[in-house]
């Protein structure tokens, strides 16, 4: 590992000033589960590691029925699934935070870090997209908001400027009769990178899908929101055939590569299977029944 500097800001202001000062050289350290691996691979030469865990805004975990969820960017996975209220409100998010890495990784890794790392395979991102989460991004110049589906722009690259910091994520309160689910496929049962993943959310009413969103992992350069799958659901009756159409749309939208984790053909196929299974589960969670 190359030499680095270590900084430990305790206020957001101090943190933003560090990012402003170091720019491209600054690397946020939350759980470190990606960062330390990258540093060992030779990245971050002469970098400034900024330990953001002690900034209160990045550590906030708050849920209100009207405000929804505020999830500090550095909050580790275990705190999220350890919160009974959050677990009840967002089972689709819980699916992801309880499957990222294993127990030890979940003791460190954060959803914010998972997002900032911008890996195509990031498990948390499709779930966040399905839940219409929004990023709160700050710099010394001010704050802005960006929907999660616009955050990742290429493998390993996100939409933030060098001096910006992801402060928190905001997830709207779950609508009534809604349900969400994230499923991924991995060859083992734990400790693996998604060969493909599907995050979905549905809102039901009068036997129809009032709303539906489908996002995919590991099948495009960035996590992929499949608009056509949502279109296939919205306004349609809650039945297997409709779900099958949405799943087919997901398969059609996927544009995976062939690599050590699977062939493109296999991954496209998995998108269909996972989208279908995730939608079925989300419908159950929404209190619906499938015809």
């Amino acid at each position, binding site marked *: *590992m*190359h*030499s*680095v*500097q*270590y900084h*430990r800001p305790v206020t957001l202001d101090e943190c933003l000033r560090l990012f402003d000062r170091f720019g491209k050289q600054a690397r946020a*350290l939350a*759980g*470190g*589960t990606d960062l*330390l*691996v990258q*540093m*060992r691979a030779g990245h971050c030469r002469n970098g400034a*590691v900024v*330990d953001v*865990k002690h900034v209160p805004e990045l550590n906030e975990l708050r849920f209100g029925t009207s405000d929804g969820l505020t999830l500090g960017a550095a909050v*580790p996975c*275990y705190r999220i699934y350890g919160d009974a209220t959050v677990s009840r409100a967002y089972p689709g998010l819980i699916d992801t935070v309880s499957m990222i*890495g*294993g*127990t*030890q*990784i979940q*003791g*460190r890794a954060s959803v914010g870090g998972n997002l900032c790392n911008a890996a195509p395979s990031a498990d948390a991102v499709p779930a966040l997209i399905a839940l219409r989460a929004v990023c709160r991004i700050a710099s010394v110049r001010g704050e802005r908001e960006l929907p999660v589906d616009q955050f990742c722009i290429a493998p390993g690259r996100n939409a933030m400027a060098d001096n910006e910091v992801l402060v928190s994520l905001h997830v709207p309160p779950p609508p009534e009769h809604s349900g969400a689910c994230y499923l991924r496929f991995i060859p083992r*049962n*734990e*400790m693996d990178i998604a060969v493909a993943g599907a995050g979905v959310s549905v809102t039901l009413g009068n036997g129809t899908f009032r709303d539906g969103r489908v996002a995919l992992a590991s099948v495009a350069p960035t996590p992929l929101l499949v608009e056509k799958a949502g279109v296939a659901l919205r306004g349609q009756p809650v039945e297997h055939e409709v779900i099958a159409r949405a799943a087919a749309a997901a398969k059609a939208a996927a544009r995976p590569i062939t690599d050590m984790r699977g062939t493109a053909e296999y991954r496209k196929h998995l998108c269909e299977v996972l989208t279908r299974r995730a939608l079925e589960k989300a419908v159950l969670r929404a209190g619906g029944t499938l015809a």
Partner: protein
Amino acid sequence: MQSIHVRSTINGQPAEFLCEPRQSLLEVLRDVLRLTGTKEGCNDGNCGACTVEMDGRIVPACLVLGAEAEGAEILTVEGIAKGSALHDLQSAFLTGAALQCGICTPGFIVASKALLDQNPNPSEDEIRLWLANNLCRCTGYDKIVRSVQATASLCREESST
């Protein structure tokens, strides 16, 4: 390169050390503090051999910077036994033959202890899920899982009497 002065609590004792910013907690424990019970198997968080408890949560010490230990409470395998008496888990691993080469054992002991601390009555599935971040290449896990189960039932017996 400037060293960082870190104050933490390790195995219940105040510990101060100097480390480089790039040194991991694993390097600090092993190379600086000579607590070599915590093992390195992969250095990227995938084998669990370096599992330690940090502020009550198990973490891979290879993915923590030494500097992050400032103000933290760290528990390593060296801190599990109480005085000259082995922890029940350690005894169960011995009577249950839950180790062969033993290199993964410290990680399993620390991780299993954390599980039983928060869930004294885990099912086989809960044990397997909790320990999925700890690789063992020798035992096939059977005797490890059984030893954790045996410790749990022993603890329950002890607490009910």
